[in-house]
């Protein structure tokens, strides 16, 4: 029996710097950054006071007042991205068996922003240890258990197949899509609405990353604060956003003449079993994930045209993954453009893996590799071609995208241009 193949036929993105795929690609291909001084709350007490915020008007993006009331911001972003993806796919959802449509939404920190705000209310700004239930909003349970995100997306598209939230820290966005691919391959669904969303720009998140000095204190120059692979980098810039895809089984997509952006040819996730936040410099477990993803795609490392890196801009990460690329791709790693869009849209935790899949697919679509912005001073320990500052026209038919997350998760995905002949 031949394996069922899975393709992306619809994309939706809500990211800093622009809502919708078109605006997102314009930002990336223009090498512009969407990081800025925090405006969502007064950041004075924090060590890091920059973030990649979205100017998001839920109502203008089609959400009803009831939807806005009951959903955390991250759920709102996911639903808006899902609707764009569904429209983009041209798939007539009403004609499908709803049981054959599933949903996977990745999120690292769920409704953190909603929980932070509501805790402040019911605790009277931390004064009450026994928090007051009479002040709680009725939808607080949807914040407690973020499977509500998958529920909202499933309702929005009419999906009644397998649905779940995938929450593997900062690899959630890759793992959610990887999970969806597995469901289609094994025959549990024919269509999956898969992606990720996080909206963590909130005092508790800033405080927890301050505490481990993971976010950058480059507060005087917010537009250039996210500097992956640059020798002067000193931490990541927190972001927010969502990307959601329509995934279909290839044969079905072909039958209906759909535009197939990319095939998800290989995916794997491994654990470093080392440390909840730290990374060993050798990148061995990420390399293992890459090797397994390539094997699943039945490809060699030298067939990869572009690497969309995790590139968070922490010293540890950038060296870790540089080592992993060399381990898996050998000399070809030196000939392959590598870039981090976190330099432009920040690090939206669990969402970014899906946003980076979108960037990877668009790179193939346009044969343009997005740059690593703010990369002026090379770090001798990061010695690959990181596409500094400006986008590059580049024949791109196969992309490797990777992620690395707290908890030790390491994930890799291989995306290819679907070949006509098969």
């Amino acid at each position, binding site marked *: 029996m031949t394996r069922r193949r899975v393709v992306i036929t619809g994309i939706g993105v809500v990211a800093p710097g622009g809502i919708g795929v078109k605006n997102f690609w314009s930002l990336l291909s223009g090498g512009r950054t969407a990081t800025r001084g925090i405006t969502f709350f007064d950041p004075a007490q924090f060590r890091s006071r920059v973030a990649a915020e979205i100017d998001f008007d839920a109502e203008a993006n089609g959400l009803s007042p009831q939807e806005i009331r009951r959903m955390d911001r991250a759920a709102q972003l996911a639903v808006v991205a899902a609707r764009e993806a569904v429209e983009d796919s041209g798939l007539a959802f009403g004609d499908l068996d709803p049981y054959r449509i599933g949903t996977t939404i990745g999120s690292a920190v769920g409704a953190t922003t909603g929980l932070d705000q509501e805790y402040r209310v019911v605790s009277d700004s931390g004064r009450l240890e026994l928090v007051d239930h009479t002040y709680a909003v009725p939808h607080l349970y949807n914040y407690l258990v973020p499977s509500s995100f998958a529920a909202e997306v499933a309702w929005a598209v009419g999906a009644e197949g397998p649905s779940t939230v995938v929450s593997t820290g900062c690899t959630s966005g890759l793992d959610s899509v990887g999970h969806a691919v597995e469901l289609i391959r094994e025959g549990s669904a024919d269509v999956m609405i898969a992606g990720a969303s996080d909206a963590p720009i909130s005092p508790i998140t800033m405080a927890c990353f301050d*505490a*481990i*000095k993971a976010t950058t204190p480059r507060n005087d120059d917010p537009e250039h604060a996210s500097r992956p692979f640059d020798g002067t980098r000193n931490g990541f810039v927190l972001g927010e956003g969502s990307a959601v895809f329509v995934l279909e089984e290839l044969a079905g997509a072909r039958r209906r003449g759909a535009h197939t952006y990319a095939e998800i040819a290989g995916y794997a996730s491994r654990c470093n079993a080392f*440390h*909840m*936040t*730290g990374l060993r410099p050798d990148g061995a477990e990420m390399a293992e994930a890459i090797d397994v993803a390539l094997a699943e795609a039945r490809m060699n490392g030298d067939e990869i045209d572009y690497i969309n890196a995790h590139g968070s801009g922490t010293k540890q990460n950038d060296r870790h993954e540089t080592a992993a690329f060399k381990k898996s791709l050998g000399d070809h790693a030196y000939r392959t453009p590598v870039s981090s869009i976190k330099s432009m849209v920040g690090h939206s935790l669990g969402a970014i893996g899906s946003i980076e899949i979108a960037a990877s697919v668009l790179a193939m679509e346009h044969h343009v590799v997005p740059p690593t912005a703010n990369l002026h001073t090379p770090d001798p320990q990061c010695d690959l071609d990181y596409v500094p500052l400006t986008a590059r026209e580049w024949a791109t038919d196969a992309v490797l995208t990777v992620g690395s997350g707290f908890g030790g998760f390491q994930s890799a995905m291989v995306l290819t241009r679907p070949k006509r002949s098969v």
Partner: protein
Amino acid sequence: MSKQFTLDDLKRILLEGAGADESVDLDADILDLGLEELGYESLALLETASRIEREYGISLDEVELTHTLTPRELIDAVNTCLTPSAAA
């Protein structure tokens, strides 16, 4: 009179904030061992430093929390911050 930061203070804060590895005896002569040898990795050091900062009202931003840092070096660094002349 300035407060002094002692090994006992450090041991108390380490235990509160990061526990102790079962194979390590904090009551042995540990002053010149690396904190990593004592089972404390980067997170434990960050938690410990931040607990010291809060309790003593100082900033240890300038102290590099490397894995080779010893209890003696950390205690000295804290006491330097606690000395009034250093703050002047």
